[in-house]
Every structure is written in C-alpha cells, then in structure tokens.
C-alpha cells in the first residue's frame, strides 16, 4: 500500500509535535500546569488495568465510526452523518433490548445488533438517494440529519419509548440482550471484540474481495469522486456502489450505537450524547482511510480520550482539549502542500523509496 509512505508518517509525526507544542501553550495560558496534564493524560490512558480497559472501551465505538467513515469516503461519498446513525442505532437497539422477551442470550444480542445496524443504514438511505438521483450534496444532507437524529431520539426516549413517568429514558434492556462486561469496575465489554472483528472484516472485504474492488473503483480518494467515468467504462455501476457504500457506513454507525447501549449504558436516555461519529472522521483520515490504520488510530485516540477524562477530573483543564488538539493535527495533515513541499528535500525522497521497496 502506497499510503503509509515515509512522507506521510513524517508529516503526521511533525504534526504531533506541533500539536503538543500548541497544547503546552494553551494549557499554560489558562493557568494550568502542562506537565501535570501530560502526566495525568498518560496515566489515564495507559496505567493500570482499569484505565487500559476503559481506554479500550472508549476505542470501541471509534473503531466502528472510523471504518464507517472511511468506507463511505472510499466509494466517493462524503458521509458526515455517522453520528446520526449512531443515535438511531442506539435507540432502536435499546428498544429491542427490552421489547423482545423470552429469547436466548445469543439470539437476543444478535437481534438487537441487527436492528441497530438496519436502522443506522436506513438513516443513510435518504442522503444516498438524494445524491445519486438528484445530485444533492451528501455533506449537507448527512450533517442536517445528525441534528434531526438527536432531536428524534430524544423525543422518542421521552415519548413513545418511555420507561416510566418520571425518567425520560427507555426501560433497561433485559439481561439476555447485554454484551457482557469483563472487568468489574470498567465499562469495557465484549463489544470491543465485535468492533475489531468488523474492522478486520472491512479490511478484508475492501482490499481483498472483488466486491470491495468494485466499491472502490469509482473513488478511493479523500475527496468525493463520485460519479466516476472509470467505473462506468469498466462496466461497474458506480451508482450502486455509492448507495451500498452509504448504507454500509450507516450500518456500522448504527452498530457503534448499539454496542454502546448493549454493552455499557444498558438503556437509552435523553441526555446520552454521542460524539464518536465526528471523532471517527478525524480518525479515519489519520488512519489514511484503511481499516487497520483506523484500529491503531482508534486505540491511540481511545487512550488519550480516557486520559483526557482523568485530566478533567484531576485538574481544571476540560477534556475537550483532546479534540481541539486532534483537529489541529488534522489541519496539519490535510495541508497537502506541506506534504508535497517535503518532496523537495532529497533525503525525504530517499527514505521514501527505501520504504516502498518491499511491495508486490
């Protein structure tokens, strides 16, 4: 794969340095101690079984949303609505969790997940059709649907799916629908393994199957390339690929939400807030639109996210700084001219070709 070239790694690492520097400045400016923040960040992410478990728990939805995003980008659609899919997937998985009684554990969990994925995919149907048949920008339609999703699930939790007159939440899911938590004091659950499995499956399908090849043939770049003349010329229907790609990414978003509810929260309530959809976009880009890269980047991100909670708890610094820093990193990484500019230096070229020797 030509993607993780030396140049790209160099830019990412340089970006990290700059981000850390900016973090130092920001934190000091608000009167806090940067090294203390750094210590807590590290501890919260990596020290101790509980923290590591929680970091992996944080990474679980991120892996899925990142893969969801990259799938849509690679078929040439700019899907920014994974967050919305997550919300509706969570809601309906939660609903299925208490609605269906008398089912065995395996069947119940499978049913809930399936429903969550189905609803998540359905949420993406309208934007996909609008783009393919009416040329309406999927960027805008998916973003708007995010806002609709939040309101919709909140309404449902308060209304039709409401548990009891007092709490605006759905009833707790039945035990048969739970994804088991392994450690006593952490929300880490078996959903993590599902997420990793799905990511690996995505890697396999995208890169090693003809189906994946057909999906990618029309796009496979960061900028939405749909519709593609190359696909049509080869006889591959790029319309179909685009729609399938959008539905798949919606399904994975729904899965992320379903796992959150089934594995951690165990019921859907009004104040439940998901941001992983947006984080997924950033991670997908950092991971160069490859599922394996997404796994690695998600683990990293999950750890510093957890670390961020710890920092938030122990100091005055709010945890949102993590996202601020990551977006700064994205600014850096997305600035193509910087990457191209690096090519001017002969040493970069040499290292580049050195690393790209061992290929097909």
């Amino acid at each position, binding site marked *: 794969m030509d993607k993780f070239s030396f140049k790209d790694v160099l830019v990412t690492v340089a970006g990290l340095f700059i981000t850390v520097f900016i973090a130092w400045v920001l934190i000091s400016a*608000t009167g*806090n101690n940067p090294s203390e923040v750094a210590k807590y960040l590290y501890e919260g992410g990596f020290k101790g079984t509980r923290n590591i478990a929680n970091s992996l728990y944080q990474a679980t939805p991120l892996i899925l949303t990142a893969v969801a995003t990259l799938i849509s980008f690679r078929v040439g659609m*700019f899907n*920014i609505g994974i967050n919305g899919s997550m919300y509706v997937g969570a809601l309906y998985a939660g609903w299925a969790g208490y609605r269906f009684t008398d089912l065995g554990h395996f069947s119940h969990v499978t049913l809930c997940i399936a429903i969550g994925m189905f609803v998540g995919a359905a949420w993406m149907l*309208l934007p996909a059709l*609008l783009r393919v*048949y*009416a*040329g*309406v*920008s999927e*960027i*805008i*339609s998916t*973003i*708007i*649907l*995010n*806002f*609709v999703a939040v*309101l*919709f699930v*909140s*309404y449902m939790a*308060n*209304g039709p799916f409401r548990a009891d007159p007092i709490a605006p939440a759905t009833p707790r899911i039945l035990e048969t629908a739970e994804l088991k938590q392994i450690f006593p004091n952490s929300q880490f659950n078996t959903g993590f393994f599902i997420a990793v499995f799905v990511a690996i499956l995505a890697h396999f399908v995208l890169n090693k199957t003809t189906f994946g090849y057909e999906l990618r043939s029309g796009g496979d770049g*960061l*900028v939405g390339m749909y519709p593609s003349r190359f696909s049509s010329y080869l006889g591959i229907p790029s319309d179909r690929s685009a729609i399938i790609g959008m539905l798949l990414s919606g399904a994975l978003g729904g899965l992320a939400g379903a796992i959150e509810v089934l594995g951690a929260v165990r019921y859907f309530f009004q104040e439940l807030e998901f941001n992983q959809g*947006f984080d997924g*976009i*950033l991670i997908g*880009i950092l991971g160069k639109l490859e599922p394996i890269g997404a796994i690695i980047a998600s683990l990293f991100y999950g750890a510093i996210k957890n670390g961020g909670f710890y920092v938030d708890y122990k100091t*005055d*610094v*709010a*945890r*949102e*700084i*993590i*996202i*601020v820093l990551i*977006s*700064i990193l*994205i*600014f850096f990484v*997305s*600035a*193509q*001219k*910087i990457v*191209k500019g690096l090519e001017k230096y002969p040493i970069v070229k040499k290292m580049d070709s050195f690393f790209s020797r061992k290929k097909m």
Partner: protein
Amino acid sequence: MEWIEIFDISLVRSLLRSTAPIAIVGLAAAICSAAGVLNIGLEGKMLNAAFAGVAASYYTESVWAGLAAGITAGLVTALLFGLLSFTLGADEVLAGLAINIFSLAGTTYLMRTIWGQAGFFSDPRIVGFEPIHFTFLEGSFLEPFLSDFTYSVYLMFFLAIALHIVYYRTRLGTAIRATGENPEAAEDAGINTMRIKWLVTIFSGALAGISGLFLSLENLTMFTEGMSAGKGYIGLVASSFGNNTPLGTFGASAFFGLGDAIGIRLQGVYELDSRLILMIPYALTVVVLILIGIRQRLKVRPVPIPES
C-alpha cells in the same frame, strides 16, 4: 385557540426574529458560494464569535467590546480557513469540517476550563444588545412592523439590500460572480481570482461572526455549548436555494424563519413535544434540498433532434 389564529402581527415579528440569524449567515454563505468557495466552516465561525462576544462582554461589561471580539473571532477563523484551503492546499470541505469540529471542541473547552461551567454560561455581567425603539414611529401604523427589533433584524434588511447593490451594480460584485462561474473567463479579463476568494472568505467570516454574536448577545445573553446548532449549514442551504443571490437567500431564509415561527406558535395551540418543533428547521432543510435537487434535474433541457 384555533390554528388559524396564530397568523397575526406577533407572527410577523416572530418571523423576522427567526429569519435574521439564518439570513445573515446565509448571506455570508451566498457571497462565498457566488465566488466559488464552498464554505462549510461557517458553523465554526459563528460559534467562535458567539463565545468571544460573550467573553468580551463579560469581562468588559460592554456589548460593543463583545461586538468587536465577535467580529474578530469570525475574521480570524476565516483567515485560518483561507490559509488552510488556499495557501496550504487542503481540501475546502475537509478544512471547513475540521474547523467546525475544532471550534465546537474549542469553545466548549474554553468555557469549561476558564469558567468551570458545563452546558451553558450565563452571568448578569454579560451585556447584550438592546432592541431599538424608534420614537418617531410611535403610534404610527408601521410601529409594530418596524420598531423595537434587535439589531440583527435591521442588519438583515440592510445587508440584503446592500449586497444586492454590490452584486449587480458594482465592479466587485461582477468580479465575484465571474470568479464563481468561470474563473478562466475572470482571469482572462484581468480579475485576480485569488484575491477575490480571499476577500469573500474574510468578509463572510466577519458576517458569520456577527450572526453568531447575535445568537449569544441578543435575545438571551449566554453562551450554550454548540449553540449554533446547525444554523451555519442551514444558511448554506438557504443560499443554495436562493441561487446564491442576496435577495434569493433572504427569501429562502425567510422560508426557514417562517417555519420556525409557525412551529413555535403552534406549540401553544397543540400540545406538541418541544423537540418536534425544534426539528422543523432541519426537516425544512431536507425538503429544500430535495426541491433543489428536483430543480437541478429540470434544468437539463432535452435538446431537440434535428435529423438533417
């Protein structure tokens, strides 16, 4: 109360109030789109300005300091966007998105870290914009239609007309429209398209900033996390529906404003869940998007076949 009774003066006032924030950011979007710059980052500019405005007003207890801070925030964010997209070659959509994510997280972070508050920040020390009362209109027929609105409503009218004049009656406006439609023709005519793009980016940054300011310093004086709530995107859709012209954008924004206003009033008539009411602007956006799509398809004129 019957549903028909909601159509009264008060609805008109409500309509204008609801339209203003969307119209102003919509005009910002329109002028960018007219020059061919796809400015997804308007949300971020609004948020940053809303925050900066509240912060400045809080510390100086002056609403004008808030205004200056907000406009500056919008401008600086716009500069960042321009730098990333034009100078550093990042994809415009990606840069805009990253800016939005950055701004949302950044403003939330600052609010929580500096003031230790989560969710929203409100304080009596924050000074907001007062509605303007026109004494000369007192008692006249026009009073309920034109008086006692906050600045944003008046600004919206002013901008719509002023931008319309600029678009169609100045060299700058023509240059902007040419840059957006056919940059080669513009360059050929000696227009520096890069300069035009920067100009519209900066100006729309200031406008989006003003729009954001009015969110946090007008009817309510507080900053809520994520308070722009998609208005930046709705503005973009409004401008697209209005063909990126000032008057068209104003009209499209009014359409959204109307939906909003009617929804709020209907809540009094029928007992509707507040969330459903809040969904109205977004649902309308989706409807408008569909209409835009249909309009686009109808534009492709089937060419007659003159078989010679």
